């Protein structure tokens, strides 16, 4: 090794040293310790006691654990596609060359800046059962729809079937109070905050070479065909990226349901994985049990990420790759 390279290596380690320490103390140690704790009975107050795979066995039979998994996956299955599609549509609209793009971009992005706690509080107020503004806006519309629908029902009932149909009386749902609507109300709130994903899409849309779109134009492709066959394949790596980030984010959802739905109400329909993990660790002081849950979450994320990469392989197009 020459003097220069040795000097540089020394400087390299010196500059990197904060992270080398930080990595060992705040990442490597916790990851290893949490594997060990997950095989222990550990309350933090006393030293961990090794109990083999008992935590994992207990989780297997823990009904609340399965409820939390089910809630989390159902929520992810609703929130992920809705959010990704909204972000993509907004980005595509912004990418059309219309006036005032910076203005619209700002309006769509700003909700993503709202702190999670404020977000939850704000939507508690908007979705409120009695005084919520959303239902106040929806009800007249639903009322109109009901009246139109009732014309049809009346006509139907004139026909002498053996069955008469009830008149419609549509009303805004009980967003926060009914188990069927508690998760959709979180999806609505999530749609409002898709700004980050939208900006990432927008940046990649602006990178799509105009020659390609023009070539498709000359071939007489419609806007829909251009979107489907040129734009979407060109930004597919970014769609995959946003999807993986979305999976990681939605599976760890915590703050919003913790504030909007105390104790996972109504009827445990909003008791999510990270909430149960938090409760085990800091409410019931079952740190070993919580560590086991942490690892199961990690494995779920890895599997879903791997699956989405594998399944998208044929559809994702890497430029020059």
């Amino acid at each position, binding site marked *: 090794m020459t003097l220069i390279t040795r000097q*540089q290596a020394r400087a390299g380690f010196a500059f990197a040293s904060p*992270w080398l320490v930080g990595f060992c103390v705040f990442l490597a140690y916790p990851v290893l310790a949490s594997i060990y704790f997950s095989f222990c009975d550990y309350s933090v107050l006393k030293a961990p006691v090794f109990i083999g795979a008992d935590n994992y066995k207990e989780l297997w039979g823990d009904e609340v654990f399965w409820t939390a998994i089910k809630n989390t996956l159902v929520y992810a299955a609703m929130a992920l596609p809705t959010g990704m599609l909204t972000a993509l549509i907004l980005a595509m*609209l912004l990418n059309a060359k219309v006036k005032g793009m910076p203005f619209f971009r700002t309006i769509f992005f700003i909700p993503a800046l709202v702190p999670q706690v404020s977000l939850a509080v704000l939507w508690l107020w908007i979705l409120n059962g009695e005084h919520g503004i959303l239902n106040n806006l929806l009800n007249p519309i639903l009322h109109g729809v009901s009246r139109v629908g009732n014309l049809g029902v009346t006509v139907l009932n004139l026909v002498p079937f053996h069955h008469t149909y009830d008149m419609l009386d549509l009303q805004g749902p009980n967003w926060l109070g009914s188990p069927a609507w508690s998760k959709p109300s979180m999806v609505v709130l999530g749609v409002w905050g898709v700004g980050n994903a939208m900006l990432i899409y927008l940046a990649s849309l602006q990178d799509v070479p105009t020659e390609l779109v023009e070539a498709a134009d000359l071939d007489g492709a419609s806007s829909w065909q251009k979107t489907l066959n040129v734009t979407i394949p060109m930004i597919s790596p970014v769609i995959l990226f946003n999807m993986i980030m979305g999976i990681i984010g939605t599976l760890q959802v915590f703050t919003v349901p913790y504030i909007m739905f105390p104790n996972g109400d109504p009827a445990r329909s909003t008791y999510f994985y990270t909430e149960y993990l938090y409760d085990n660790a800091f409410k019931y002081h079952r740190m070993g049990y919580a560590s086991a849950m942490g690892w199961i979450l990690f494995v779920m*994320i890895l599997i879903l990420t791997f699956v989405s990469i594998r399944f998208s392989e044929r559809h994702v197009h890497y430029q020059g790759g």
Partner: protein
Amino acid sequence: MKSHERTLTVNRAFVFAALIVLSLVFAFPFLWILSTALKPLDETMRDPPVWIPTKFMWGNFWDAIKYGSETLHYIPFLVYAMNTVLLCVLVVAGTVASNSLVAYSFARLRWPGRDFAFAVTLATMMVPFPVLMVPTFALFRWLDWIGTYRPLWVPAWFGSAFSIFLLRQFFRTLPFELSEAAKIDGASEWRIFRDVIIPLSKPAMAVVALFAFMGVWNDFLGPLIYLLDQKMFTLSLGLQFYQSQNGGTTWNLLMAASTIVIAPVIILFFFTQRLFIQGIALTGLKG
């Protein structure tokens, strides 16, 4: 070609109309909190809803700030705000200082194992926080740091994968000839870092600082786990306590308080818009 142009115009008009409708939908919640924050209490619950308060109660903001001060003998909102600002300063300073050093090493210095270490660094971004939560808590408990701010800011001084990644990408775009020239003049790596690289990297460092600030301002789980004394709470933790304390929630005051929590982030965004958008776009593109 004429008809082609016409469809283009029609398309554009359609897009414009969609953008206007959607921006109204997206802006609506903000307008609604602001309207609620400025109402007298009885107007918040009226049916049909009162869109514009009959009387603008600017005093609501002050009432929201000093809410709870009679029983506690201090103004909780101001105390929480001070705590949050203190934490923000400590975390932002630590994030910028540590990550720029580390990123410089990854981007522009050669040392054995560097590329492997960088790959590991990127991989750590996959580890979800809940996995780290318990052992980190145990570690801080062993250090006797529970109930202090240290668990919330000390780690920021030891680097974070995301910021290292962001800064490294930026440092690599700076011409290497600059470093070579400085080296020929006999400058040490520290001098090159301080006098050549840092002055050219202000935008990237501002992005990292901005994200760090947002992280602290928004963090809920961290303070929830580590802070015990109500006097030490941050705004995001305080806001929740604020709401549950109100049996029949005084929505106008709660919305006024929320507005004050949201406002700094939005104001900051307006001043740093370009940086912000570049930063976020960068996270998706160079992945």
